[in-house]
Structure formats: C-alpha cells, structure tokens
C-alpha cells in the first residue's frame, strides 16, 4: 500500500467518525425498560402511597389529630384558603425566599470572585470563612429578631445568610481550579487581568456557580421557614407554629406540603436557568 493509498484510507476512516455523539436520553435505564413504564411506575407508586395514607391510619385506629388523612388535608386546605388568608402567607414566603435567594446568591458569587482574585485576602480570611460556614446560620434568627423586631427583615437576612456560603465556596473553589494553561494562553495573547477574569474565569466558574445555586435554592426555603417559625405573624412557617398551637395537625401538614412546593418551584427555576447558561455542555456530562 502506498503512502497516498494509506492516507486516503485513513481519511475515509476519519470521515466516518461521528461528529457529535448524541447520548440516548434513557441510556441509563436498564435494558428493556422504556421511559413510559418508568413514568407509569412512579405514578403508580404515588397513587399507592396516597391510598395507603388515606385508608391505613383509620384502619389501624390512628386518630386524625396524629395523622390526618389525605381528605382531611384537602378539607383543611380549603378552609385555610377561605379563613386564614393562605394566599397572603404563601406570597410572603415566596417573596422572601426568592428575594433572599437572589440577594444571597449575588453577594455570595461576588465574594467568591473577590476572594478568588486575591490569594492574599483569601488566605487571611479563610479561617473565619470556615468558621462562619460551619456555624448554624439559622441559629442567628432569634438574634436578628431581637435586633430588628417582628417584621420581614430577620427572615430575609437569615435566608441571605444560608444562601450566601455554599455559593461563595463553590465560586471560590472554581476560581482556584481554573485550568492554568487557559490562563497562560490568555497571558500569551497579552490579555489584561481584567480580560482574563471576564473571558476565562467567569465563564469557567459557571458550572460551579450553577451547582451552588441549586444548593442555595433548597436552603433558601429552610432559611425563610426558620425565620417564620421563630418570629412574625405571616408566612407558611408561621402557619406551622399557629397550627401547632391549635393542635391542628392537618394545617401543619398542609404548610409543609406548600413549603416543599415553593422549594421545588425555586429549584426548577434554577434548573431552567442552568440549562440555558450551560447549553454548551453535552447532556450526558451535566
């Protein structure tokens, strides 16, 4: 075989290579299991669970003030809508969770970038950051209430605080692990420190930032709930303490379900943003 024959053969082999491997969406499913059967299985499990919840406790003689049935929850939900201004409480919780999440993420990311840019500041502050990161932030809630009174501020500040740290830590970590060769490439192209930051470090930190936001979204709901539990007279957390005082178990359950839904909504919003920002990462790797 001459060199040019070899070349042509090799060229053909190269041309056959798939340009972009599109991973099958359900390639992780066991062989022979379709996506529909998985979906039906999940739905079936949910229905069985709800039926068990509805009929098992009464059948076993568990009173409804210990475990209210699903219909009890629905009845209580309707009552809360009519008598307890449920919409106002939900709105308050959603607003504070979203605002606290947004502000906490912004501050956390900004702090992460600042510390990532300056090794000196990062080294000086790192023991304190570690301490604050370990300190249970929700325990500060009573303190903020003593300082600021029974209003929205303590809840907002607790939420900001719990969201802040995971995001800051994630961004800082990604800044420290940016590929040195990429930075060298930019330096070789005579880019300024500022250009390197905007063109390489910030985009390179996006996957870590998004992972931080996912964690922050779930923590935001915990922060606002604790804030409402310990003080104030609005929000789903307040309804939990209120229901507890009245021995209204169904009300407590309903508030927990609604808080979960708020958390899911926030998480879904972050997941949507992430899908847009990280569109350049193939799905299978994400």
């Amino acid at each position, binding site marked *: 075989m001459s060199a040019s024959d070899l070349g042509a053969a*090799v060229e053909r082999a*190269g041309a056959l290579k798939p*340009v972009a491997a599109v991973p099958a969406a359900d390639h992780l499913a066991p062989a022979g299991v379709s996506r529909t059967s998985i979906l039906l299985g999940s739905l079936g499990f949910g229905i069985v669970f709800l039926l068990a919840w509805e009929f098992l406790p009464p059948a076993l003689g568990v009173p409804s003030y210990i475990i209210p049935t699903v219909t009890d929850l629905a009845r209580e939900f309707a009552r809360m809508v009519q008598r307890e201004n449920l919409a106002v409480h939900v709105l308050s919780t959603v607003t504070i969770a979203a605002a606290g999440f947004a502000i906490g993420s912004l501050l956390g990311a900004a702090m992460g970038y600042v510390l990532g840019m300056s090794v000196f500041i990062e080294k000086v502050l790192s023991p304190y950051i570690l301490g604050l990161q370990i300190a249970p932030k929700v325990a500060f809630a009573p303190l903020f209430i003593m300082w600021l009174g029974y209003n929205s501020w303590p809840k907002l500040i607790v939420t900001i605080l719990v969201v802040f740290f995971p995001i800051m830590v994630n961004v800082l970590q990604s800044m420290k692990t940016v590929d040195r060769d990429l930075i060298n490439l930019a330096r070789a192209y*005579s880019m300024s420190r500022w250009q390197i930051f905007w063109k390489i470090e910030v985009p390179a930190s996006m996957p870590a930032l998004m992972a931080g936001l996912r964690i922050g979204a779930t923590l935001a709901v915990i922060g606002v709930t604790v804030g409402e539990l310990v003080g104030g007279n609005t929000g789903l957390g307040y309804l939990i303490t209120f229901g507890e005082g009245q021995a209204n178990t169904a009300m407590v359950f309903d508030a927990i379900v609604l808080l979960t839904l708020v958390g899911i909504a926030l998480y879904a919003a972050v997941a949507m943003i992430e899908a847009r920002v990280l569109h350049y990462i*193939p799905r299978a790797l994400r």
Partner: protein
Amino acid sequence: MLSTASVLDVIGVTKRFTAPDGVSPLTAIEHVSLNVRAGEFVAVVGPSGCGKSTILNLVAGLDRPSEGRILLNQVPVEGPNPTVGFMLQKDLLLPWRTIVRNVEFGLEARSLSRAERRERALRELRRCRLHDFAASYPYQLSGGMRQRAALARTLAIEPAIVLLDEPFSALDAQTKLILQRSFAQTIASSSITTLLITHDLMEAVIMSDRILVMSERPGRIIEEIPVDLPDRDDPMARIAAPRARGYVDHLLASLHLQEKAA
C-alpha cells in the same frame, strides 16, 4: 523560501527553578542556544523531563531565563508577546464559545473591530478547512478537528513564530497522521516559521527541516540534524521514504534509547 533572516534566537539560556524544599535549585535547561530562520520548521526532541516545555514557556515570554537572552526578530523577549503563537497537547478551546468565537479569542486583546475579527477568524477557519463548523461548539468536534481549530486560533494572530508543544500526542494513530499532514500543508503553504517540541522521533523526522536533540536534565542541545528529505508538506510521503527510517535510527542511537531499560 530559504531566507537567512533569523526569527528566533535563543542564546546561552539557562533556567533554574527553586526546588520544593526551597534549597537546591533545579536546573531545567543549561546553556541552550538555538535559532529558527524565517519559514523554517525546527523540531526539538529529547527524553521526558529534559526541559523541552521550559524552552517553549521562555520563548512565549511566560517565564524569564535565569541566564542568557532570547531574541524574537532581533528584539529581546521580556514578557508575553503577541507575535508568538503557541499550541499544546490540549486544544485549550473554550467550551462555552463556538469555534469561530474561539478563533477570535486571541484577537480580542487587540484593537480590531468586531467585523475585522470575524473576517480574520473565518479566513483562518477556511485555511484550516473548518469553516463548515464555525458555529459548532467544541464538544461537537472530533479530537483532530479540535486541534485544527486550535491551529486556526494560533494562526489568526499572524504570529512571527508558532510554537507547537506535542500537539498530536493525545490523538489516536490515524487521526495523528491526518492531522500531521493537515498541519504540514497549512504551515508549508503559508511559510509559517515553526518550532515543534515532541517526543515522537518519527514525527520530528517527517515534519521538520532540522532536528535538535536534547540531553536528559539539565537539558542541553547535544546534536543538530538537518533533515534532507523532500515533501516537507506531506508527512505521509516522508513516512514511506526509506531514508526516514535511517534518521529515526540515528536519533534512537543518539538518545541512547537502545541501552535503556524501561
């Protein structure tokens, strides 16, 4: 093509690094002198850890020599220099940018308009036969295409010299052959001055005009071998040439690879 104007002169360069213990300095390269003339393709081979990449970092201005001087077009290198293009084993494409935006990357430190940047990037992509993939993202390209995109990015800044640091070593054998030919054609057709760092002896023989052999650490240049073979723009033809084998055997001998146990 054979002009005598020297593009790169490395004159008596020594580079020492502080060892991790902070006491005994580590000498990476010692009294290295070499030059690359305009349009010439020079390859540097040597055992691993002989300081090949150190030379590259020094020429790129990312590091300063401990002794000696480096001149680029007779001007001392004192820092990162926009007339040096370098390419590594890793393609270093930014995954969040399309291919054409990746090629524009190196031009963004310059005062060019957006339209001029785009025009130059597309011209380089045509030269590297990648213009159909301008709007693709790096993950959508094969390894060989990604390296070609990296070459397009390197050539877009119109460098006085291109430094290649083992750009083919992460590729499979077939892709490597194709890419070596592709690079050789692009480089020969535009008379691009090139310094290739490699550990692949055959690659050095089939791609270059001249080979510099380095010793183990501290790296020194122990031999200079002009490659007197035709077809520098077609490594596949050179591979088939019986005399190519002779050069490789000579390199094997001068690196004492035969006597070495694995």
